[in-house]
């Protein structure tokens, strides 16, 4: 192998063909509310932890739908479970249970 000082960089493209559908289906069974998100962002805006650490239920759901599991877990690891997102969610998503369910299904 020759070092040219540059090389092929990994693609950042989302490939929906390779998303782990089984895990997501298991998640939707455990907490069906995951399907209800309409990406309004209220959760991230009110989040207690997001003042310190990038934390967003909205983006975590999206990441899982896009097959970016690591990113989803990263977006939830700082969650303090305070429940503000549950209170502000206009679709009434049970975000606390959703977060725990995501961590249980996808976490190591």
């Amino acid at each position, binding site marked *: 192998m020759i070092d040219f000082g540059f090389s092929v960089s990994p693609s950042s493209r989302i490939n929906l063909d390779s998303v782990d559908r089984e895990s997501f289906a298991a998640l939707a069974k455990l907490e069906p509310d995951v399907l209800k998100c309409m990406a309004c962002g209220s959760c991230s805006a009110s989040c*207690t932890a997001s003042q310190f650490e990038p934390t967003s239920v909205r983006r975590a759901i999206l990441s899982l739908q896009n097959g970016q599991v690591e990113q989803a877990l990263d977006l939830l690891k700082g969650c*303090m479970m305070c429940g503000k997102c549950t209170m502000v969610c206009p679709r009434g998503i049970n975000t606390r*249970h959703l977060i725990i369910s995501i961590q249980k299904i996808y976490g190591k």
Partner: protein
Amino acid sequence: MISILISAVQPVTPEGIIDRYPNSYNHFVLPFVIGISFILVYLLIGLIRVLYHLTGEDRIKLLKSLFIPKTALKNLKDLFCDCLLHTKIWKRKPLLGYMHSAIALGWFLLIIVGHLEVYIFAPRHLEGITEGSLYYPIFYRFFIWINPAHETLRGTVFFFIMDLLLLYVLSGIGLAMFKRVRSIALGMRHTTKPSLADRVALYCLWAIFPLRLLAESFTADLSGGSFLTKPMNWMFKAFFGNELNFMPTWWAYSICLGLFFLAMPFSRYMHILTEPLLILMRNAGLKVRKPRKGFAEAEIYACSSCGLCIDACPMNSQKKNLKYSSVYFIRFLRRHNNRRINEIADKCLMCGKCAAICPVGVNSPEIRRVQRETLNNSINYDYSYLDSIAQTAKPENAEASAEGKVLYFAGCMSHLTPKIIKSVESLMKASGTEWEFLDKDKGICCGRPQMLAGKTQAARKAIQANKALIEASGCKTLLLSCPICLKVFKEEYGLKGIEILHYTQFIDRLAKEGKITLEKGTEAIVYHDPCELGRGCGIYNEPRNVLSAVGDLKKAPKERDESVCCGYSLGSMTLDEKDRAKIAEHSVDNLMAANPDCIVTACPMCYRAIRSKSPVPVKDFAEAVVENIKPSKTKK
């Protein structure tokens, strides 16, 4: 107490009392002996199991508590009131209380007095197993022949007492039978479905005392009797003629007793024997550490499956949620049904009402929390962002003037209800209180929501960070507007030298100290007890003191420790929005029964929940107070 009694009545050797059977044995005692032996061995093993699963620390704590006079006295009182008298049930449902005390106290006294009788009249039979000490006092009336010519006054008194006690028990049994048929008449809407063992034990229990009555009546002319047994004896004689008919009834009596004891460990009636242990452990200050072992096991077996918690549970405003009640949770724990255990553990609102009304005092929400812990505590989290905060917070940097200041911590939820924060701010101004606002810009969660989710480890991290900030502030009073925070601050923070106050307490104190003067309005107010404030921290009176000075305080049908959760508690992990809304409606219905002009509550969560369903204005506690502060003349 019993020993005093015994010493007062010295044993005698009465002449007219003769064992009808020289070796004091008859085959019919066998079922009973088998049953009682089984239950005693089972109890012993169970006790060892429970003690074994306790941590070493807890075991020592338990042992010590037995010798601390204050705890020992409390133990005695609780044992008598809870196990025998059933005062808790009396308070809520007198008829049900009478039923329980009739059976429990009546039976207990029958045993004690029976033994006393044997001790006085046939002391030899208490001397050892070989003398029949296991069964003799129970079947005393069978083995003895009393010469009517020698009947003493003392004997007659005992006959009378024993018949009276039997009648007492029978009245309880009668009520129990009636309850089975018409439970609603005794004030219970829902009751549990008994299992097979429950049924066996139940029917045996029902049969034991009528059979005892029959058996003792058959032998009443030989062994003596009183107003109950004697007339029955005459009647039987008149009908049956042959006095040897009494054998089948004694057999039946013994079999029922034996069966009852055999079925007991597998039935709800195990609570009779477990409750005393639970009382001792609880009074020793033990806590649930594992959901199925040690203290929790004692709680599980102490559950009487009475089902009082079914009606109490706020989730049951919808029929479909009946299955999530504590009684079923405990039942599944006993049966090791893990799927259902987790489902129920996660669903619960943790409002604590079931524990508050439980006659046995089983704190099932705590078991549920620990059950959640077993699954959720190991979930990854990363609060490393809190480290720098905790490190920079240094007590030595605090201003000296801070000591006299009040430190206000609004908490996450209060930040969603700015009205509460605004009201607290106005209150501070009006009362001239010097204060600091800890989480004005960036707040850290108090840790209670993590605890409720079973993420105890994570909670500790948040607690640590907040604790460092509070200690670094130098303030000696911590003021909270959120009861969720209050509970965890009180129980888990260990803030030494810092007084933790909920704003209901603080305002009550300000009013009492004259720092604010309240103006009594004409509004009819009903106060909603937030779960975490009332049942969680025992604060019922302070808010009521203040509110009655502010308006016309009405009573809701269910209030104080029976208050109905608003439904939005962070305790529940899996209740969905629709179910929560239904509970909120139910909670509001209860409050609206008082026909108030406005509802006041003292929790940001309840405030939001009730406001969404209430037909009348809903006010936060501080808001209601601030609206009614008389402007001070001395200040601008």
